């Protein structure tokens, strides 16, 4: 019997589910291995009987917690896909603002009609078994994780920073170019894709386990950068992780 899989999305851009559509021919191969029973973005049918649930997006309001808990109850394995789901991602920028104020300026007198609370990754609400990091996720990494899960193995996720991959790719360091980069503390696995394209690491895969903060501080001092520079960039993606430290 093929394992039954389902896809769900919460507050996010659905760019990660798009990466699954972007598998193109490989998607056909994948469909040979699993039975998709729920994927609102592409199919009308829906079933609550599934083994693996892939969840994209952050939890941003109390009313969404019930839906998440129900998915947890139904699924044997829950996989968070994309930064919004794995680390809270860019949604958490607003956590540093007064949410009532934000809501009032947005909806005026109708503010009460629209619930919201601090944006958070889904493991702040339910237990998550596996993670596919990135904004957006990398298609190959997604396939690797799926393969591992189908084989009953725990997916292998790098525990070293992006700098390791970036050096291997022989990039000119962003700091040497006068730019701020969060690669030194960001979890690798993306093959330093953004720096390869001529920009910086923005931190979308989240803080690496045990980030070397002293090394980051040394970098700041060496390049004459301020803590404000660092905090600004850290808050792009690390908002939730920083608030839990």
């Amino acid at each position, binding site marked *: 019997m093929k394992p039954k899989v389902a896809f769900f999305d919460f507050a996010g851009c659905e760019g990660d589910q798009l990466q699954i559509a972007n598998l193109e021919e490989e998607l056909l191969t994948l469909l040979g291995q699993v039975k998709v029973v729920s994927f609102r973005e592409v199919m009308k049918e829906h079933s609550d009987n599934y083994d693996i649930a892939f969840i994209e997006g952050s939890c941003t309001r109390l009313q969404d917690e019930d839906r998440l808990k129900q998915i947890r109850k139904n699924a044997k394995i829950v996989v968070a896909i994309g930064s919004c789901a794995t680390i809270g991602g860019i949604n958490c920028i*607003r956590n540093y603002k007064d949410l009532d104020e934000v809501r009032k300026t947005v909806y005026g007198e109708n503010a009460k009609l629209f619930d919201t609370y601090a944006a958070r990754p889904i493991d702040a609400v339910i237990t998550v078994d596996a993670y596919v990091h990135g904004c957006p996720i990398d298609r190959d990494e997604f396939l690797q994780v799926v393969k591992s899960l189908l084989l009953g193995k725990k997916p292998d996720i790098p525990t070293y920073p992006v700098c390791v991959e970036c050096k291997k790719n022989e990039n000119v360091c962003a700091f040497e170019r006068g730019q701020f980069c969060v690669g030194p503390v960001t979890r690798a696995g993306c093959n330093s894709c953004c720096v390869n394209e001529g920009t910086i690491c923005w931190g979308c895969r989240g803080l690496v386990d045990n980030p070397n903060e002293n090394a980051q501080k040394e970098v700041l001092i060496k390049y004459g950068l301020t803590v404000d520079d660092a905090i600004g960039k850290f808050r792009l993606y690390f908002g939730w992780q920083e608030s839990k430290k």
Partner: protein
Amino acid sequence: MKNSNIDVEIHHVTRVEGHGNIYVNVRKGVIERCEWNISEAPRFFESMVVGRQWDELHHITSRICGICSIGHTLASLRATEAAMNITISDQDLKLRKLALHAENMQSHILHLGFLVLPDLMGVGSVIPLASSNLKEVKTVLLLHRNANEMSTLICGRTTHPQRLIPGGFSKIPSIKELTDFRKKLQDSIPALQAVAELFKSTAHKFPDFARETEFIALTKPDEYALYDGDIASSDTGTAPVTEYLSFTNEYIVPISTAKRAKHARESYMVGALARLNINFEKLSPLAKKIAGMFDLKPVCHNPFMNNIAQLVEVVHNVEDSIRLIDELEADGLQRQPDYYKPEIKVKAGRGVGATEVPRGLLFHDYTYNEKGVCTKANCVIPTNQNHGNIELDMKDLLPKVLDKTEKEIELSLEMLVRAYDPCISCSTHCIKVHFV
């Protein structure tokens, strides 16, 4: 009348991007309720970007939508560039137009092949089609992959582009990469024609329905406007993009987390059909020919024909991309330094960027202080502009299908919503912020 009492409640309409609901109640043949509302969680982007630096905004607002992240990035960059009087080279302009073509193709093909085709083939998703119509599905996948390869070639990746930055590009493709890709585009034309034939053979399943409305799109005298232009209304003529607020007039509907817009009438429509209605003459030759296959010409008031207008646009995207690559080759592609970051003189100011993205006209409007920190932001999303029109179409369509079964009514209404290709993540994630 077959159905004196009908209750349709479709929570989370499938095969659209994001969460939207349809509510219909009919009592003794009288329509008591017919509503389209959005339940997607809001994300407050316009509030999130306040306090952020000028060279981060395009990165953040790209995340409004995964499907049209290139369009959001471009509208964002153009707003920042307008605010700081930043100009880009003619070469970069052509490359950006290629980026937009790539995304338009990707998004339209995804919509037509994955989301619309199942309705026409009488199935619930593209998955059964992979066994029953493998040849057709592979043709769709080929076109989709081509479009994604083109995004990667120009932008560094398919979703949330990296190379597009204020003032130009951090990295550009080589002329060989471009001319190699030109061949792929040329070779994809038979596949496009095959998809057109497929839709031609099934298009009779789209309801024969029309409701007069206003169309709004960018327009330019000498090209099918996508990257830039003036705002044009089918009712009131043209105006510069800086006057966009007098067109969009957004308002809140309490039942819905997405705002709506109206201009000369109760609602208006943006997107491929609006563009085609306003700029038909500027379409590429083959695009016009494909439109002719479906007898699609201005002014078409059938919203279901937005699907066909998307198909026509994909053909235009391919032909115009070939033309742009030819021009880049003829001009000789200028190389630029690695890790390029154009020198920008940061200044205070306000700028509006308007770009036609797959689902219609998109506005980003930013105000910066002298340090280049964003102090105000407003984004008006295509799907928000369409929500009002969708609901009015629904109210007009419903009485015409009341004699059908509840299931058929449901399908007609869902097909109507899908025809607009609504991007609900976009439309709720960008609630307008009122600034005091």
